[in-house]
């Protein structure tokens, strides 16, 4: 009974993560500008990967595995915003002066 409950909660987390990944990819394809694309992908990517890894924690059978997944989540939540911030700063400093660089 408890096992079935854990499986259902884990599958719900997996589906939520897939939804966020799909939303981020849709934004990456449809948005008109580099910075708006980054706005879509960074948030949805970080949250989607975090939700999927939390969902996988419910399927893991040892505490060791769960700790490893937690380490990956913490690394992603530090590294992904840092990389996006650095990238956005580079784009902003490059395209100051002319206001329509990089539009489709």
């Amino acid at each position, binding site marked *: 009974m408890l096992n079935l409950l854990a499986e259902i909660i884990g599958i719900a987390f997996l589906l939520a993560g897939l939804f966020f990944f799909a939303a981020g990819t849709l934004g990456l*394809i449809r948005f008109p500008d580099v910075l708006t694309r980054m706005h879509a992908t960074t948030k949805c990517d970080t949250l989607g990967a975090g939700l*999927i890894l939390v969902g996988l924690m419910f399927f893991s059978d040892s505490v060791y595995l769960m700790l490893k997944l937690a380490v990956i989540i913490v690394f992603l939540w530090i590294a992904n915003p840092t990389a996006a911030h650095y990238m956005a700063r580079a784009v902003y400093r*490059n395209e100051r002066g002319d206001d329509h660089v990089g539009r489709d």
Partner: protein
Amino acid sequence: MVLTALLVSCLVLVLLTFAALYRAVVGPTPADRVVAINVIGTKTMVVLILIGFIFHEAPFYIDVAMVYALISFLLTIGVARYLEKGTIV
């Protein structure tokens, strides 16, 4: 039930990876391509962990995924530095 959910998640993520590959190929500026490849890297990492859970060998695949996430982070930082300053080091 769990195996089906893992397989479906894997399949959906691979399809979304190809959707992001469109932006990496078409994208008008280098920054677009780097953002798309960063997304692809995150998705690949998640797919690796899912494959590990499907094959019941999760610890090994999780190590590979950690290294992959580190390399993807370094790629983004390197290209951003190059775009900003014109040189990496």
